[in-house]
């Protein structure tokens, strides 16, 4: 099934794009992450221009996180106050990201920066997840339970001025901490076309110290709005959102997300986390090799 993409200016096999969306949707349903970290590199690998890939992946993440966010909000799993602060930071972040994108593009370093960010982020977070889930699995095997981790926020967070009460998260901290976190994920979303869920969730748990039952819902809430802002930002600045490409991805990812969610209910959460860690590390490894190996094309062209 050949589909002509009007913004990317090329023809692709529509079924491959739908399958790609389904794959990432499956991941997002299973693990509660947006899956953008896989979509963007795979689309670039398939031959779609990097800017179009990053711009269109954001709307796919929006679609994949909608039903999840609704489901969590029905269960009361969203801290709207915290979510609001994160979204405000996130929108600010997409603005900063847009400026950075522009500057890096003019310098010709956008691809390198994106690749290095991928390697660093995916490598470190994948490594942490793998270590944590292997420790839990070992503890399950040997029957000795791990000492329960104390839930508390990072000392740096406690030093920030001006404190607010976040009832649902069970926190009394400065709103600057989630705001800065939101800014950081907003920048990442704009630059890398990812939702930022896999950065946001651990940060909310281990830096802010939010109570676990609102973490995933609040993260989905933030991702939903920040990816919307990213799509708008790309539509206004880079003009690289390909709605045909995005729709194809969405068809795959929204169904994949539902199937993945059913899957996740049956599987053990620790094994799921380990699986996700392995996938994340593999992507990071592939990216790291890509930086070090001689690329196929030494020369690249960009419009002036």
């Amino acid at each position: 099934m050949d589909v002509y993409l009007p913004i990317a200016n090329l023809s692709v096999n529509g079924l491959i794009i739908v399958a790609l969306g389904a794959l990432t949707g499956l991941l997002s349903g299973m693990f509660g992450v947006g899956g953008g970290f896989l979509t963007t590199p795979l689309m670039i690998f398939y031959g779609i221009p990097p800017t179009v890939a990053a711009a269109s992946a954001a709307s796919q993440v929006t679609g994949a996180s909608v039903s999840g966010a609704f489901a969590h909000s029905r269960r009361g799993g969203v801290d709207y106050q915290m979510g609001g602060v994160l979204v405000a930071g996130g929108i600010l972040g997409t603005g900063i990201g847009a400026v950075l994108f522009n500057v890096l593009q003019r310098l010709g370093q956008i691809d390198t920066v994106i690749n290095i960010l991928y390697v660093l982020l995916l490598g470190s977070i994948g490594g942490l997840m793998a270590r944590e889930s292997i420790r839990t699995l070992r503890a399950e095997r040997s029957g000795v339970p791990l000492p329960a981790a104390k839930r508390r926020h990072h000392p740096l967070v406690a030093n920030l001025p001006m404190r607010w009460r976040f009832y649902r998260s069970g926190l009394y901290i400065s709103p600057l901490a989630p705001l800065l976190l939101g800014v950081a994920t907003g920048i990442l979303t704009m630059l890398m076309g990812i939702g930022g869920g896999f950065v946001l969730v651990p940060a909310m748990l281990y830096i802010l110290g939010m109570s676990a039952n609102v973490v995933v819902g609040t993260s989905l809430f933030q991702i939903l709005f920040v990816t919307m802002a990213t799509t708008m930002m790309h539509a206004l600045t880079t003009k690289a959102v390909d709605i045909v490409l995005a729709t194809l991805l969405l068809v795959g990812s929204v169904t994949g997300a539902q199937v993945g969610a059913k899957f996740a209910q049956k599987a053990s959460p620790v094994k799921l986390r380990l699986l996700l860690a392995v996938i994340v590390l593999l992507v990071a490894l592939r990216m790291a090799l890509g930086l070090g190996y001689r690329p196929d094309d030494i020369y690249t062209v960009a419009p002036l």
Partner: protein
Amino acid sequence: MRGIVALFLLLLLGAARDPILVPEVSQHEVQLRQGFTGTELLLFGAVLSPEGTRAAQDYDIIVVLKGPTQSIVVREKQKVAGIWINVDSTELRSAPSYYAIASTRPIAQIVDDKTAAIYELGLKWLQLSPIGSIDPDEQARFAAGLVQLNVEKGLYRQEEGAVKVNEQVLYQARIGLPSRVPIGTYTAETFAISKGRVVASASSTVDVRKIGVERAIADFSANYGLFYGLLAVIVSVAMGWIAGRLFALT
């Protein structure tokens, strides 16, 4: 009176040296729409001697199809501290977005380098107008890099021997356009060459454009970014929501 006759004879004589070239393109408009996966243009025509007889054996034919030129920056990666990053770059003011050349024989056998350079006959001779002063070696390196990249994408082609001549009158060449062909007005030029000299040339245009929904989407995105973005957001939210609903029912 005598003067007019002389002038007429002179014109006739002048014309006598040049062959008659009647070029045509199979389609003057390429439409990019759903289902477009690339196409093939047929550049064909007739070449006759001034007397109107078969003449193609005396002439070599070269056809060139060229897309609109654009200003680009070409970047070159080098290995720095273990990773490949863009280090060097050059700006080119007139790189063709598409360039295909086909000829009856290898171009080097038809014309000499000087003529090839004047008429831009061949990927080696593209006039790219680099901005600023760079030395010729570097310029050649970047030009070669650009050409190789676009050959891989199917946007630059050089097919020597692809022009076929029938009955020494009709010539034809098929030129492929990939699906990623850039939009714009293309020029199709035909050259008749004899003894290393271009003796006749003719050109016509081909319009490559998006039509229908594809055009509407591209225009919408370019002119109404805000509403286009909103539309994309609405589509993605609606699809996510509908899928959630459908699966909740099952």
